[in-house]
């Protein structure tokens, strides 16, 4: 399946764009996505943390991804 990943903050800088297309196997999880990102873009390994939001909510590592989801990379937040 083809997934569209949105990225903010330093995650956008690492991917080089706000939106990135990734090919993953059907049934892939948030954990699989993070593994893929860490492999393809080693700069992610240096971050303090990297969370994934699905449909505007923080997702568990076991959550299964679908092309219909809004998938967003959330690097360490620093608001306030």
């Amino acid at each position: 399946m083809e997934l569209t990943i949105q990225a903010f903050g330093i995650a956008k800088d690492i991917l080089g764009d706000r939106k990135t297309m990734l090919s993953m196997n059907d049934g892939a999880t948030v954990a699989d996505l993070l593994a893929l990102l860490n492999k393809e873009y080693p700069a992610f390994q240096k971050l303090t943390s990297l969370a994934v939001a699905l449909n505007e909510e923080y997702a568990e590592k076991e959550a299964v991804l679908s092309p219909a989801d809004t998938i967003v990379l959330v690097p360490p937040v620093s608001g306030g």
Partner: protein
Amino acid sequence: MIKLTDQPININEAIEAAQAEGAGAVNVFIGTVRNKTQEKQVLSLDFEAYDPMAEKEIQKIVDQAKAKWPVIKAVVVHRKGHLEIGEAAVVIAVSTPHRKASFQACEFIIDTLKQTVPIWKKEIFEGGEEWVSAHP
């Protein structure tokens, strides 16, 4: 009231929105852009927000605060975009019947906002820039 805005925050408006009949106390927190982080001279800041999720996460924090303390009204306004030194990045105003709860609820909201709300701060230095807290 929860708001993300790329315009300067109107502090007075935020405080007025938190005023309420039955409130004996309003606590207000204003976070401003400092001209120094550790030893580096900060020239300005950029805030980026994932707006729809940021608003939802702020609403969750306000709901948690209301479950813990007798909050009458809570206002959270966060700036985004480019900020100069001295500008307000965030304003939180909380009204309660008595004072202690206003301090506790306001501090809880800013502390939790900094941990969970998808907003990112980039500090701009002479000859460089850096996403705050991105690296250990």
